[in-house]
């Protein structure tokens, strides 16, 4: 289902700290932004990898967690009313005859903008795929069969022989939630201990005692069956013993990892999965496409949040001239400009 294309000034890929701050710098210049992020919330790595870990090198904030920094950035950009498209992956970018760009997502969103800013960090967060030969061929096999990295509809797993791997909250939550409707439920993990919340572990142990869940210290070595029709797996223990296990579906839960993803297909010049930019504009070698934060590369690049903030400010100046070719850019300070203060809603 494709909705009508959305026209805006700037389409930003990535709602991490740098994408968020770009909204601020662009907003001061009256440029409106739409942001796309594959995660279901803002913050990128800051909230996905280390929400509780303190960061000590943000200027002016002696100590701030990834989540707090994200919250503060959201507060800072609130006056600019940016529109977010979460849980969407930017999948294609094409140039329109009028010189603007059309950016599409896997959810059917289409953004049309004269400026695109790639603030995608190291790329898209995607589920970790266990290193089992041929596992790809069992993905997308259909509802309730084959390999799945997420549960969309529990009902599709009813009556199935389910195998779950992992020891975190997702693994245990789905063992507990799917066990009542499964034909059989088996959990495998590399140790007899779990990272998941204690109450989930207790619940799982109860189900194990009642015989509703089987638990093995083991890992999946092979998947058997035809692509589209999985019949079972080979499990291996740490003592190298191997055995066959019947399963209709295998759900590995090892969290997320970062892959560059479709950005590699956008036709932008890349150097080892990074986008080379000039340090005056932070523009890629494709005019109108900017890259800021961890995704870019230039002589002396440091992957620091503070460097990304600087890059966002310079990018905004250059982006203005593309988005508003007939207007004069008026450089002002937030401390002294009543015009900027009005935009920020403080005067």
């Amino acid at each position, binding site marked *: 289902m494709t909705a009508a294309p959305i026209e805006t000034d700037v389409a930003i890929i990535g709602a991490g700290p740098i994408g968020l701050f770009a909204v601020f710098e662009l907003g001061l210049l009256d440029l409106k932004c739409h942001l796309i992020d594959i995660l279901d919330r803002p913050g990128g790595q800051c909230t996905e*990898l280390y929400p509780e870990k303190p960061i000590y090198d943000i200027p002016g904030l002696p100590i701030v967690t990834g989540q707090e920094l994200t919250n503060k950035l959201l507060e800072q950009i609130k006056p600019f009313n940016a529109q977010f498209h979460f849980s969407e992956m930017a999948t294609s970018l094409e140039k329109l005859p009028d010189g603007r760009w059309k950016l599409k997502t896997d959810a059917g969103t289409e953004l049309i903008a004269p400026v695109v800013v790639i603030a995608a960090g190291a790329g898209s967060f995607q589920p970790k795929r*266990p*290193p089992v030969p041929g596992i790809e061929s069992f993905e997308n096999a259909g509802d309730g069969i084959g390999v799945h990295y997420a549960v969309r509809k529990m009902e599709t797993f009813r009556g199935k022989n389910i195998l779950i791997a*992992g020891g975190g909250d997702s693994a245990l939550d789905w063992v507990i939630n799917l066990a009542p409707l499964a034909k059989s439920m088996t959990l495998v993990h*590399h*140790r007899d201990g779990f*990272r998941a919340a204690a109450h989930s572990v207790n619940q799982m142990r109860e189900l194990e005692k009642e015989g509703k869940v089987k638990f093995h210290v083991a890992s999946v070595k092979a998947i058997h069956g035809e692509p589209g029709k999985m019949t079972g797996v080979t499990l291996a223990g*740490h003592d190298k013993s191997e055995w066959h296990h019947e399963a209709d579906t295998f759900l590995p839960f090892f969290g997320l990892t*970062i892959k560059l993803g479709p950005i590699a297909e956008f036709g932008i010049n890349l150097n080892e999965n990074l986008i080379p930019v000039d340090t005056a504009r932070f523009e890629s070698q494709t005019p109108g496409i900017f890259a800021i934060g961890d995704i870019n590369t230039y002589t002396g690049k440091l992957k620091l949040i503070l460097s990304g903030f600087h890059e966002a400010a310079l990018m905004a100046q250059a982006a203005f001239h593309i988005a508003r070719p007939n207007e004069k850019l008026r450089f002002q300070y937030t401390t002294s400009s009543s015009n900027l203060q009005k935009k920020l809603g403080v005067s």
Partner: protein
Amino acid sequence: MKIHAIDRQGKEHTLEGRDGWSVMEILRDGGLDIAAECGGACACATCHVYINDGWFEKLPAPSEAEIDMLDMALAVEPNSRLSCQVICSNETDGIKVTVAPE
């Protein structure tokens, strides 16, 4: 202070360790393909290595946080460690590691 590291293609590299640096940093700076997405915060499990040839037992035991984080690594074995949590010192001179599969 040497680190013998086998990459994902099975090639062995001998790298110069630095006292107080993590093995992850030495592998990364030595050009081995190791994501280390979180930059050494014990928050992502993408610097997973196997410690070979009896070196596992010689290392200080992993912290609770590391043991927990290993639950998010793939293909964990009894000699698995997160290389950002293994610190180079004279005691680790000659350590042998293998980068775990992606």
